[in-house]
């Protein structure tokens, strides 16, 4: 869907009968939903069922299809979707499919190392903002140059974990050997890569085994268009573009420029460029030579972050150190958050754990980030308590206190509409340390005692242990 797509151009292709079968009040409303991307043309039953609408339906599907093709890699539970983007800047709408992170293994590694890397990649899981952050794929590199060795490595990886695969080799013989391994091609691995030297053979492999394929043309955009056009004319539709990840010799500038230009071209629907982009921050390890691995992992982390910021739809990383991967995953989650969704949670009283009449009562704001962080900390500390979530209009503690949205009245409102007072044998609450200046007001307004809690919710556990049961 290009940015220039209009409501009317969608509406014109609809039946315009306002039958309501789609669940919307009328066809104009349904057109709006399509523009927001919350409904698809296929959600109109008459258009799907009646042959007189067939042409219009096809036109609509093509119109609504995102400018950057959505490419599926893998199958089953861990299927990865990349691309599907429609805008350059997230504030223009939202981004849709977060950057897939692939961790590499090489067929030169020992079976033990391969196994451990695959397991670690599959197990990686961190919770942030109530959502799970995970790693997505394994990129298997045919570094040995021996097709059988590559095939047996791919076999091992496939057995050890259920993550989608990226098969990395420019030798079609090696790629074919891997694809012939039982159970591999059914899982739609991403083929890396078709180049100007092997496009015919690799393109044919992509056709035969029906896999998405990367078109790779390092720092040569003419070559990239040529390659992608050729693959397209072979009937291939699931293409990923690799413009080259060059980070040394002053070429980082070219890499970043190429990514911006390609994303723009794709969104402008330029021929053969409406495809997701692939970057390889792992290249920093190739030029690392004698460098300290910690320094290299550090570099890989911020280079990967830079690339995620600049439209990379899939990245290959080598470092599995949690401290290097965590910021990349965190940044990815932030960038791909839908800016249209509200960032506040419902205000009210939450019960955490098994509560009773003497359980502590804690207070926080309804800013989603604050709320989830505090919830997380309380749960992690094992404290059983009530949590008053005040309606601070989606603002965090400090900002809310400064702006006046986090005040005694808001807390009192929650107390007023809940039955918490009747359940307790005390009238004491713990307020965030950063809201200390509200203590007096809160006590006057609510009639409760307000204890000034820790500055950071991570200290709640320790604070409750030390201070809650202490005599007044």
């Amino acid at each position, binding site marked *: 869907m290009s940015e220039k797509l209009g409501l009317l151009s969608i509406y014109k292709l609809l039946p315009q009968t306002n039958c309501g079968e789609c669940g919307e009040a009328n066809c104009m409303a349904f057109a709006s939903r399509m523009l927001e991307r919350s409904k698809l043309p296929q959600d109109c039953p008459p258009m799907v069922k009646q042959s007189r609408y067939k042409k219009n339906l096809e036109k609509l599907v093509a119109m609504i299809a995102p400018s950057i093709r959505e490419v599926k890699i893998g*199958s089953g539970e861990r299927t990865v979707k990349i691309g599907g983007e429609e805008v350059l*800047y*997230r*504030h223009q709408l939202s981004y849709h499919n977060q950057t897939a992170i692939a961790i590499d293994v090489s067929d030169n590694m020992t079976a033990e190392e391969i196994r451990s890397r695959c397991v670690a990649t599959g197990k990686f899981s961190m919770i*942030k903002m109530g959502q799970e952050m995970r790693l997505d794929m394994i990129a298997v*590199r*045919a*570094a040995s140059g021996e097709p059988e060795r590559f095939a047996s490595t791919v076999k091992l990886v496939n057995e050890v974990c259920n993550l989608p695969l990226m098969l*990395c080799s420019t030798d079609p013989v090696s790629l074919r050997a891997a694809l012939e391994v039982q159970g591999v*091609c*059914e899982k739609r691995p991403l083929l*890396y890569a078709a180049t*100007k030297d092997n496009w015919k053979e690799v393109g044919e492999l992509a056709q035969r085994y029906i896999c998405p394929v990367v078109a790779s043309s390092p720092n040569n*955009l*003419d070559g*990239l*268009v*040529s390659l992608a*056009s*050729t693959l397209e*004319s*072979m*009937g291939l539709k699931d293409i990923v573009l690799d413009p080259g*990840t060059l*980070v*040394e*010799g*002053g070429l*980082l*500038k*070219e890499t970043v*420029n190429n990514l911006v*230009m390609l994303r723009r*071209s794709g969104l402008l629907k*330029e021929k053969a460029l409406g495809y997701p982009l692939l970057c*390889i921050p*792992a*290249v920093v390890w*190739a*030029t690392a030579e004698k460098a300290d691995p910690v320094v290299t992992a*550090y570099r890989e*982390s*911020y280079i990967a*972050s*830079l690339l995620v*910021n*600049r439209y990379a739809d899939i990245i290959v990383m080598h470092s599995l*150190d*949690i*401290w*290097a991967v*965590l*910021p990349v995953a*965190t*940044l990815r*989650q*932030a960038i791909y958050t839908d800016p249209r969704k509200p960032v506040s949670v419902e205000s009210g009283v939450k019960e955490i754990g098994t509560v009773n009449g003497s359980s502590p009562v804690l207070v926080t704001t309804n800013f989603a*980030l604050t709320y989830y962080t505090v919830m997380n900390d309380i749960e992690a500390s094992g404290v059983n308590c009530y949590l008053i979530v005040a309606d601070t209009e989606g603002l965090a503690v400090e900002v809310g206190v*400064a702006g006046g949205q986090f005040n005694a009245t808001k807390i009192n409102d929650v107390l007023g509409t809940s039955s918490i007072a009747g359940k307790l044998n005390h009238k004491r609450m713990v307020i965030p340390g950063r809201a200390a200046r509200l203590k007096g007001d809160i006590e006057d307004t609510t009639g409760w005692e307000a204890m000034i809690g820790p500055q950071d919710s*991570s200290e709640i556990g320790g604070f409750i242990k030390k201070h809650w049961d202490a005599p007044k």
Partner: protein
Amino acid sequence: MGEESESTNLVKNLLKVVQELGEIEIDNVTLDVEQLELIIQPIVSSIVSGARPLPQLQAQSSKQAQIQQLLEAKYATPLEQYPGRVVEVQIGATRSEGGSRGSIVKIGGERTMPFYSFEAENPNRPAFAMDIFDMPLSLTKMVKMHYEDVMGDPAAWAKRCVEFGAEVVSLNLISTDPLLNDTSPQTAAKTVEQVLQAVDVPIIIGGSGNKQKDPIVLEAAAAAAAGERILLNSANTDNDHKRIVEAANKYGHSVVAFTPMDVNNAKKLNKTLLSEGLPKDHIVIDPTTAALGYGIDYTISIMERIKLAGLLGDEDLQMPVLAPASNAWGAREAWMKNEDIGPRELRGPLWETITLLTAMLAGGDLFMISHPATTRVAKGLVQDLLGNSAKGGVVDDWVTALG
């Protein structure tokens, strides 16, 4: 003999036709053979056996089968031209300009979005300031360890930052906070003088955040730094911004316009400051930089919106942007001791670095940093992104080069 030559001719003609066309379609064919071997592609057999669900088979036109050569193509660079420009703001003044700085910093002046160098060259590059405070304070160990011996002396602290590569020193007069030491504006002014004498890079002066006291403190600082073209940090909707603007104008300084995460409010504040007589090229916008994982997505979008609006012609948003990347230290991932997520010696500066580069790609022009590693990496990255770095080679085949 005749029959044979007829069929041979037929075959010859057929071959000739096939050679020319690449492919021909013949209807109603009967094959009369003794043995026929069919080679079924593995994907088909697995579909048939039910091992894999039917894939979306792509429509294959008959022309596709015989592509022999790469199609020729040329890439068309998608260029945009923007009617507006960001103004250029200078911080610091040399002796010939009425100050005493050995170096000055110019930010802003953009004609296109950050590092879109395929499209246009922006006249200035991002600049980096490092934070100091006018009293020792509780800093996370990862930062504190670099300044422990100088925290009691702002002048020495400033020198340390310059040693670490700071192009600007950002002095925060937090002791003036009534809830801390409540030091007088006069004392604060003395500190400003000391720092100005200790280093010859440009200076940013920050208050304590107390809305009543800050304008008075900044006014005193402005007087003490007369002629040095410092940056007063900050005017916002809650403090006496008129007083700050007057001080800035009287002594030739620029002002940071701070708003908490709202483009419309940022625009309004700029309009207000302009109407109070502050020149457009004496304004730097601080739209709030949130730490990675703590709202950085808002920072990205607000900065991009501001930069785009300015380039598209919105005159109230055509000022350069200040990004305190050191806010990253507020994130628990940056300071908390937790071996489950790795050593904080690495996590901390990395968190600040990634917060910084994210803000930089979104439109940040001037950054505040706490950790020396961040300054080093940031300056190197800018040179890389401008194509100025000379060292290193190109990796031909990463698949094998990684071992």
